[in-house]
């Protein structure tokens, strides 16, 4: 599908994309036909879904530079048709959806072929419905379709989260998720309400984004709309302090669903935020940017330190998603600030760094979530402290997860480093703000960002080393089996995306460059024109340059030469023996690091941020038991008080509840009279 130029055939990309979405829907609903047939669903339907992902990926890669096209769907209510529009921003996010959904679909065919407590056909329907609704969020060009897609996305993902609904914790996680999704949806709806406020007197149809674009809101209403968008989309993305659903919901879902939620669904919130802030709103005010930047940095820092103290591998990744969302948000904050001072070149650089990070996160976080899925299937253990040594039993997963681990830790030459590098370059260029306070804030903000990314490396060493390295901490791990072929295919797809995105940043940025052209009004010209594909030079070669390909090849060459040199001049003799017992008579696998002990330095250094309860056994205890529970302070500071307040209010209202129908009728009657009086 990607091998012909769609324009030549006279077909618009937007219609091809719609075809793909219909195709996904058909696959989803055929799941209902084969509702109990695990084999057909996993071996046929999910791979077919992956083909849809590849098609989406290729068509969006082709058409990202095209000018926006819109269409009206013949669906919806009689006078309220659905508007859709394909511009650079939506194309980019569809591209992101294509990349991760391909890998995740492949993986799912392996994952759902195993036995489990669910009906495969239903999962297939919900899964593809989830994909389609996310695509419609990106395509929607009116508030009506956007909200429908948004809610469908929330509902389908809710059902996917509670796939294993027999477990009470999972039901609870699903409930919290649903609650937060609705609060977020309400805020988004209000935001659209504010955005179309000024158009109320016009003829109907002001709910379209096209009309909103042409409205000039004053500062107050623009700020209101912005803050509502920040809250609504922030809650969906997991921004502090509305992040609490994320570490509950992501681990509860089956791994492919966690991957999809973390990799793509969080990005729908980023998409919505970008759409409102840069496309629908005309003006940006500098303090918006500072607010978003600060929130983003706090979120990143908070996410990463909490991620470091988790024992559950999927919760660890969920907190790491919070961190990455924080980084993305701080990039957006910088973009807003630059844009408000009309520093377009810098704004587009910051935006590119942000989008690049979105893409990267979609790849490596999906990859790691899928890898935990394989581990979970092989061992039925999600506590990091009970895993270990899987590199010997699951070499495929171990190698592919290593790529993801290094990428997410922001290490060269993989993709996580590129976006981090671009973002730091943006920070370093920021010295020309008119306010001195801002200028001095920038190095401090950069320091915060750097600290968060350095901590991410710590977290990822913990994640990888405890799962795959060392000796198995439990007996049952010895029987672990490597992932099956479909799973390997899915993991390899995402891992190779991580590598390619890391090695060829210039090509990727050429692709991304259409987005700042649309949103900022100025694309980053120099990257594409001045230099060759080897060197990434965002501004000029003497300012900064980075060539991951050369770095990678040089490292490889030096390794080869060293290896051959050592063999040639000396020898390659190896003797195997048991590991040195450190001078102690008894060494068992139980003496290895556990998840708690690896998180200990973080717990000590950043202790004020946690709410900890630990139980230390006394030295003379014959059966010593140590345990430590680290909790999020936000529950106690923010959510429980709110919950108590709401319960208090409900009790107040409970008093007017009498139980007799005539009294209820009296209430309605009084309300009616009151309303009539008021009118």
């Amino acid at each position: 599908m990607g091998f012909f130029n769609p324009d030549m055939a006279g077909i618009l990309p937007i219609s091809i994309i719609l075809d793909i979405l219909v195709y996904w829907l058909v696959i989803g609903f055929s799941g209902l036909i084969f509702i109990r047939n695990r084999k057909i669903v996993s071996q046929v339907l999910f791979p077919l879904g992956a083909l849809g992902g590849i098609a989406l990926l290729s068509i969006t890669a082709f058409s990202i530079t095209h000018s926006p096209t819109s269409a009206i769907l013949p669906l919806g209510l009689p006078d309220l048709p659905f508007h859709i529009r394909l511009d650079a921003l939506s194309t980019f996010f569809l591209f992101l959806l294509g990349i991760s959904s391909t890998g995740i679909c492949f993986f799912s065919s392996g994952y759902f072929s195993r036995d489990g407590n669910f009906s495969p056909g239903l999962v297939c329907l919900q899964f593809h419905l989830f994909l389609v609704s996310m695509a419609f969020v990106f395509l929607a060009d009116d508030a009506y379709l956007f909200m429908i897609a948004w809610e469908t996305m929330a509902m389908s993902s809710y059902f996917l989260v509670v796939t294993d609904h027999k477990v009470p914790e999972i039901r609870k996680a699903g409930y919290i998720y649903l609650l937060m999704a609705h609060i977020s949806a309400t805020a988004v709806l209000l935001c659209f309400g504010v955005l179309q406020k000024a158009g109320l007197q016009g003829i109907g149809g002001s709910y379209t984004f096209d009309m909103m674009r042409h409205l000039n809101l004053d500062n107050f209403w623009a700020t209101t709309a912005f803050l509502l968008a920040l809250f609504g989309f922030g809650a969906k993305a997991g921004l502090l302090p509305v992040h609490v659903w994320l570490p509950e919901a992501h681990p509860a879902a089956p791994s492919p669903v966690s991957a999809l939620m973390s990799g793509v669904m969080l990005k729908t919130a980023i998409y919505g935020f970008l759409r409102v802030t840069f496309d629908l709103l005309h003006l940006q005010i500098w303090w918006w940017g500072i607010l978003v930047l600060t929130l983003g940095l706090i979120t990143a820092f908070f996410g990463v330190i909490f991620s470091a103290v988790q024992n559950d591998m999927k919760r660890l990744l969920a907190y790491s998603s919070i961190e990455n969302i924080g980084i993305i948000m701080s990039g957006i904050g910088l973009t807003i600030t630059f844009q408000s001072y009309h520093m377009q070149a810098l704004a587009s650089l910051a935006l590119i760094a942000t989008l690049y990070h979105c893409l990267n996160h979609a790849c490596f976080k999906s990859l790691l979530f899928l890898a935990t899925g394989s581990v979970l299937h092989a061992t039925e253990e999600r506590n990091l402290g009970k895993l270990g040594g899987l590199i010997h039993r699951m070499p495929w997963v171990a190698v592919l997860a290593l790529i993801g681990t290094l990428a997410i830790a922001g290490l060269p030459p993989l993709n996580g480093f590129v976006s981090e590098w671009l973002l730091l370059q943006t920070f370093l260029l920021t010295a020309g703000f008119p306010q001195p306070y801002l200028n001095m804030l920038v190095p401090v903000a950069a320091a915060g960002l750097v600290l968060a990314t350095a901590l991410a490396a710590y977290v990822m060493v913990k994640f990888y080393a405890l799962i795959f390295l060392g000796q198995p901490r439990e007996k049952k791990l010895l029987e672990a089996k490597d992932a099956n072929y479909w799973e390997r295919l899915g993991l390899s797809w995402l891992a190779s995306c991580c590598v390619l995105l890391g090695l060829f940043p210039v090509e990727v940025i050429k692709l991304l460059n259409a987005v700042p052209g649309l949103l900022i009004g100025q694309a980053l010209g120099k990257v594409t024109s001045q230099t060759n594909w080897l060197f990434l030079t965002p501004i000029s070669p003497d300012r900064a340059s980075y060539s991951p390909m050369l770095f990678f090849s040089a490292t490889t060459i030096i390794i080869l030469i060293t290896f051959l040199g050592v063999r040639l001049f000396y020898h390659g003799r190896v003797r195997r023996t048991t590991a040195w017992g450190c001078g102690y008579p008894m060494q068992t696998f139980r003496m290895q690091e556990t998840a708690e002990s690896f998180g200990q330095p973080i717990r000590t250094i950043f202790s004020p941020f946690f709410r900890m309860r630990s139980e230390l056994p006394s030295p003379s205890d014959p059966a010593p038991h140590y345990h430590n529970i680290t909790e999020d302070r936000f529950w106690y500071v923010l959510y429980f008080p709110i919950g108590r307040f709401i319960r208090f209010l409900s009790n107040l209202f409970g008093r007017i509840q009498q139980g007799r129908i005539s009294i209820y009728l009296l209430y309605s009657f009084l309300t009616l009279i009151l309303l009539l009086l008021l009118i």
Partner: protein
Amino acid sequence: MIPLSGQLLNLLAAVFLLIAFAMLAQRRILSLIHLYAYQGLVLSLSTLIVAYSTHQPHLYYSMLLNFLLKVLIVPWILHRLIHRLNVQWDVETLLNIPTTMLIGLALVIFAFNLSLPIVQLAGTINRSTLGIALASVLLSFLMMITRSKAVPQVIGFLALENSLIFAATSITYGMPMMVELGIALDVLVGVFILGVFFFHIRNQFDSLELKHMEKLKDN
């Protein structure tokens, strides 16, 4: 382009701030006294450079006074004092250095931004160091607040005075000679009196921990 003397002054100012931060993070009393002496030295050097490059004779005297008092006499007195009190190895135990430093950093940003409009009014060659002097004043204050022992608190007070003189030289080429002499005398007398006080405090409470003084409040 800033002339060389201005650059040197900026460098000295940076070192001054560096020492102020080092004092904030230092636990040992003995090292604190050394740092105080270094700070005095930096102060005298920068006064010397200002005096040389602007040909202000009274600044030479000021520099000499500073040098004698803050590099030689006061540190010597403090040395004697802690030897006599036998607290030279005392270590401040309760001190969260990273948090203190973080507050210090915020104070520096605040001070820098506060000084920017004033700097534009001043005409001295070392006017841009006012921000640093102001920051040092705040940092010394912070140091006094965070310490629980008497001697470090006094050193914080002395550092505060150093920073004030530094601020004065940077914005108006120093205070009139009379004022400076007066301050110097005050410092000297202050150190003596405080030294005497220390002995009394220790006799009374058997310790120089300031929390014991809380008992003095009448209730």
